[in-house]
């Protein structure tokens, strides 16, 4: 069976190292985002999960707790390859408009553009932070809208994750002074996770 062939587990020290790398990466990301937005950003400690793809929607739903979501997907490639999802609640990130140089009255297109802008910043900062720790090059494709105020359960419907195992790195963002919160999820196919783990091993050896 295909799923058996590709199945892997993270060794404890690998997972620990990955967690550590993610923590440092997010710390850096937090300070860059704070520079950009001019506001203090709260980031959760990244939660790292290895799940079979069919459990991805459940794993997401469990942690998000919003009924209606908007979501942006952005692919990243070169040394690390996968997709990042940024999931927003009902108010999306409209409250950040002025921080991003938008007029206050947002029409629908501007709302979506702001959503894409903010997602791009979060994904770039977080993945950039991780990639920098691992001394990997990383590139990004343009972000695209995945869900425009859809029920959460429809988010991954019709786009089955075609991998046998997915690495889920989940971070929550919150701005103290604004009503804004979102979830960043990195999904990587098993083959890519293997490549990532090679990089993690190098990182461990270099310590």
């Amino acid at each position, binding site marked *: 069976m295909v799923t058996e062939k590709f199945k892997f587990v993270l060794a404890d020290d690998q997972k620990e190292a990955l967690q550590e790398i993610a923590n440092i990466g997010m710390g850096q990301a937090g300070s*860059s985002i704070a*520079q*950009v937005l001019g506001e203090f950003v709260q980031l959760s400690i990244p939660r790292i999960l290895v799940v079979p793809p069919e459990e991805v929607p459940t794993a997401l739903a469990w942690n998000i707790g919003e009924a209606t979501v908007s979501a942006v997907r952005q692919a990243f490639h070169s040394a690390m390859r996968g997709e990042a999802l940024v999931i927003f609640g009902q108010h999306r990130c409209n409250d950040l408009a002025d921080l*991003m*140089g*938008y007029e206050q009255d947002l029409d629908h*297109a*501007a709302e*979506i*553009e702001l959503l*894409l*802008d903010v997602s*791009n*910043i979060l994904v*770039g*900062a977080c993945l*950039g932070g991780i990639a920098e720790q691992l001394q990997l090059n990383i*590139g*990004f494709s*343009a*972000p*695209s809208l995945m869900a425009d105020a859809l029920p959460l359960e429809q988010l991954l419907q019709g786009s089955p994750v075609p991998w046998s195992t997915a690495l889920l790195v989940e971070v929550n963002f919150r701005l103290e002074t604004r009503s804004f919160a979102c979830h960043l999820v990195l999904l990587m196919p098993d083959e890519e996770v293997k490549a990532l783990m090679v990089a993690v091993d190098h990182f461990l050896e270099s310590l």
Partner: protein
Amino acid sequence: MSASATPGLLDFVVDRLEVGIFVVDSGMQVVLWNHFMVMHSGRSAEEVIGRNLFECFPELPKVWLEKKIRNVFLLKNYAFTSWEQRPYLFRFHHNRPVTGGVDAMQQSCTFLPVKGGNGAVEQVCISLFDYTDTALYHRQLTNAIGELEQEKAEQRRLIDQLEDAQNQLLQSEKLASIGQLAAGVAHEINNPVGFVNSNFGALERYVSSLLTLIDAYGSADHAAEAPAIRQKIDYEYLKEDIAVLFKESRDGLERVKRIVQDLRDFSRVDSSLEWQETNLHTCLDTTLSVASNEIKHKADVVKAYGDIPNVECLPSQLNQVLLNLMVNAAQAISQHGTLTLATGTEDDWVWVAISDTGSGIAPEHQKRIFDPFFTTKPVGKGTGLGLSVSYNIIAKHNGRIEVESELGKGTSFRIWLPIKQKSELSA
């Protein structure tokens, strides 16, 4: 570093590529402005390079764009714009001046951090892609999808209308068959009511005679006349006839009562839309008695009932089907024939067959008998809806209806019904 073995090739390609490329430094001064930008903006590189981007192009959304470029410096990361949300950065003419339908070139842009040796971002390179064709195509698709959605909604509306019309047809067919029956039923009721009425006339006269007789016996003056009166009123005959008249009248009233009961069973006014476990033999019997006026002069009825379980159905609708088939059968018989009602069971199905020895259906008509408004009866005799409605009622029961017919020999209709409906239908 050079990506090419030929000196100057990279510069040439960057300059002549069909993509807008320009570079700004951290002071928003333009340091590169390629051929595409020159051609479309109408500003030469000499006019633009070394000057502030927003001074050269005051129409640019400065607050937003400057913030965006600054973020690339800060985050050392890409940024993007898409024509879908922001149709263009620069208002350029597009490549479809005649057939276009958009007012400016649709653009998607990538903001690329240009890093120096120390890893800091020194410049931002913006590449501007012409997405006009894609945008137009996208718009066509969006319109087409919109039209499809609209058509779908329209179709939904038409289907609803059809369903309404179908329900109305069902109702009017029901009314028509009831109307047809009313005459027959009136006759059925009129007959016993007539003779009960005339019996009452006779009984009235008899009671009056008897009272005269009793009065005579009770009176001293006329007691002697009593035997003569008794003879005159034919007391012995009266005694016999009164018993007969009462019995006949009682029978007549019973008949009326039964007809009314059958009519009520047949129509099941109170529960016409409920699925019920129903004895089909009862359905056949009540329908037969309701239609008896149509049948009794035309056919002898033979019942060949099998041993069948109760069937989950809508009894009043099923009765309508049976009535239809029985009346059709009777009408197909020109002089006198036989109407056979048979039932049986096979696996999870029950069948009811209604067969006549009538004229039969011509082969070319057999395919069309279930079509609405198809009739071979003379104008005014049939609506042409009976079998169509029957067909739909049976379909609603998840059953089927089969016909076998031979010209001059007769016709047999066989209805197959599932004993149990699937739960969502009976719910």
